[in-house]
């Protein structure tokens, strides 16, 4: 079975936050919430000091802890794309998923329900931006000037590279 995910290469990121704002603007994400977040992390001490950027969003885990923990069974993993998605109608806002997620991804807006990156899975098929396998490219990936984000298809059963997605 194949799935999709977004890989992040820290060496290619220049910390412009384009992905973060593209996500918010295209998906109309509420103020205060972030489905994708760029952070600066410091390494070393002055003057041998570096900043390293990260761009984090839901990893769409193969075995999502959030999905396993959800008492309302509101979280599912899509067959076709592998996207981990929340059914807003079923979510009861209990935040158990936030405790379960090892990456601190779930966000809660004014409606108290969980929201996060859904890989733009509703747009993933046949949506103008056609690629090899008829695939839409999420705005965060499409806007990144330095290709630090890439949409990849992954063969399930393999380990994802270095957790940088």
């Amino acid at each position, binding site marked *: 079975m194949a799935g*999709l*995910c977004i*890989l992040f290469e820290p060496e*290619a990121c*220049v*910390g*412009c*936050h*384009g992905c*973060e*704002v*593209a996500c*918010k*603007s*295209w998906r109309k994400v509420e*103020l*205060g919430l*972030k489905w994708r977040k760029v952070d600066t992390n*410091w390494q*070393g*001490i*002055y*003057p041998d*000091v*570096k*900043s*390293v*950027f990260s761009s984090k969003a839901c990893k769409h885990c193969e075995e999502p802890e959030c999905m396993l923990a959800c008492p309302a069974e509101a979280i599912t993993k899509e067959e076709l794309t592998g996207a981990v998605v929340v059914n807003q109608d079923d979510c009861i806002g209990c935040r158990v998923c936030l405790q379960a997620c090892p990456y601190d991804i779930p966000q809660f807006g004014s409606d108290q329900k969980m929201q996060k990156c859904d890989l733009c899975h509703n747009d993933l098929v046949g*949506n*103008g*931006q*056609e*690629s*090899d*396998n008829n*695939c839409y*490219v999420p*705005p965060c*990936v*499409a*806007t*990144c*000037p*330095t*290709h630090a984000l*890439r*949409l*990849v*298809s*992954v*063969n399930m059963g*393999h380990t994802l*590279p270095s957790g940088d997605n």
Partner: protein
Amino acid sequence: MMNNCNVLNNEDLGLNWDQALALASQKGERVIPTLCAMCGPIARGCGIYAFVQEGRLTRVAGMRECPVNQGALCAKGQAAPQWVYSPDRLKYPLRRIGAKGEGKFERISWEEAVNIIAVTLKQQKEQYGPESLAILAPAMRTYNAYLKRFLTVHGSPNYGHSGICALQRAFAFMYTLGDKPEAQIDQSDLIIFWGRQPVFSGPAMNAPKALLRAKDRGAKIIAVKPSVEPDVAKADIWVPIRPGTDAALALAMLYVVVTENLIDHEFVAKWCYGFEQLQEHIQKYSPQWAQEITGVSAEQIYQIARLYATTRRACIDLGNGVEHAPSANDAIRAIAILIAITGHLDRPGGNVFNITGVSRLQPKDITLRERLTPEMGKKLLGPEFPLEFQPFIEGYTSAYYRVLESVLTESPYAPRTIIAPGTQPAVSTRGSQYVIKALKKLDFYVVIDVTRTADMNYADIVIPVTTPYESDHPFEMFGGRIMARHKVIEPLGDYKSIYEFFLELAVKMGYGADFWDGSIEQCLDDQLRPLNLTYAELKKYPVGLEYEKTQPRTYENYSQVFNRKSPKLDQTPYLPHGKVEIYNTYFKKAGFNPLPEWREPPESLTGTPHLAKEYPLILSDYHTSKCFTASWQRNIPYLRELEPYPVIHIHPQTAAARDIKDGDWVMVKSPHGYMKVKAELYPGIRPDTVMILHGWWQGCQELGLPDYPLLQGGANVNIMYSVDPRKAYDPLITAMSSQTLVEVKKL
């Protein structure tokens, strides 16, 4: 890439025109190809596809066909809809009815507003002469040509150029090398980013990609600046220089290459004038001497000078950071000399000349440069460059701050009307305290902008104008490529474009014959005539038109460039000897040092040690940020979330010594003023230096963030610096200082 996954988007970013149309049709939207406007309307704009639902701009994607951004877009570009629909937008013209600064206005019609300005200007022209009008120039915008044209037809030379950006580098380079040569990064094995911000100055443009490409192919990257920004994050060597001391570093690098004989003798013998004088002059500027001033170790100065001089393909990408110090002209020409004598000028991978072939087609220049006269020059309020070097590239220019200062000093005379089109003097130049006083005293102040501005409350008339998303003109062009702006949405109120404003004002002034009788279409057609195009025809090309291929580059064009004529009215050449002017005879004749020298900022650890006890830290500011353009756009929630508060970068040790924790509100105090801002503990900054982004004043309604005071106790760094005419300027190129000494205390 790993063998268990396939990359689905290889090199393609954004959308192409067909994909944009398909996406729009699928979503029941309209899509309009145009150019991003978040850095202001500029020639080298990023192409975008703007999506419109029920008449409303909803989102944008990068235009893959546009060579500037090739489909990519930055945070600012993506946030465009929130800027267009901000509650801070100006929707109709305003006339002040309260006291200056009070903020009481009444709504008037567009027609009435243009009339009031025309009547006032006509009356003042008669009473005080045409030079009583000054227009403050914003950054390099497409509409600047219209401002210059209006001034020239009116008869005023007072175009108020910043004095701190671009022209300062251009001046020192042109009068040393006859050109401002570009760093040819893609061919280089060693790149020095010096006072330059290659990422935030245009994240979707070429510079960040070129930096990463250079890194990938193993080029050595050196970054010279006081704090770690994204370019430093990618660099092999960081040179953490004290703000405002670039001239000392450049002089010491010259010392190393001259005393160690790391020069290109053949080039120097054939193409340089005054090397012997430099050899003698440079002896006093050793790396040991520079170490005390710059805070960079002598060892590192030797290292980078030797690396640069001995790497055949090496270039220096010099940024705006060097243009804000009293020694700016000397820093820039010392670097120009360094490039030349080490054999890196107009050679592959070095700094290469901007050569435009004579056959290159250009739209017509509408600035009316041909009408400038020596008499106009004599009326400059505060020349940005000494009169013997004017007009320069942008025509006659007064320095922005000096225009405002002359309102207070009435020397050489008082301007009576100042127009601020897309620029905010209270936060965009130094000495905001004096700027506000000047605006209070000024007879007539006109603000033109798309959103409310920092000093709008001092305006007599406020003219709202379209964002470029609400306008179908003008065209933008760079290289051999040209594209029309296409209107995305209708204007949201009673206003027109800034281009239409100046055309209409000109007609009301009686200048219609010089302003196409007010017709923007005729104005654009006139400009396009050399390309054999009409604007209507150009608009048929959704993603623009490449009318001329870029010509292949040639190298070592010395005799051509070294004999270039200057833009002065008598067209004297830039270089009197047809060679690199190491020993500058023009500067000497005008009363300045013919060789580069060191000059301290108004306040510094080495120049004013008596102040260092009370004010032990150096303060300077960032010109560029990842999320805002200059002093604009703090009102955009998606951007403001990235940087909600004005923060001062302070090293953790420096903070700990003052019991300051990350996120604490602090007081930053200099001999000239104080700010209240938040501390950000920043491991990547010199421990003796603190830095803040300039341009803070505006709140963000959607996020509940208030405006900050413009003067004392706010977050406007421009109140912190000296504007003493004897100390705060480079004597030749203005270059107002942005360095002072401060103490930081927890509030």
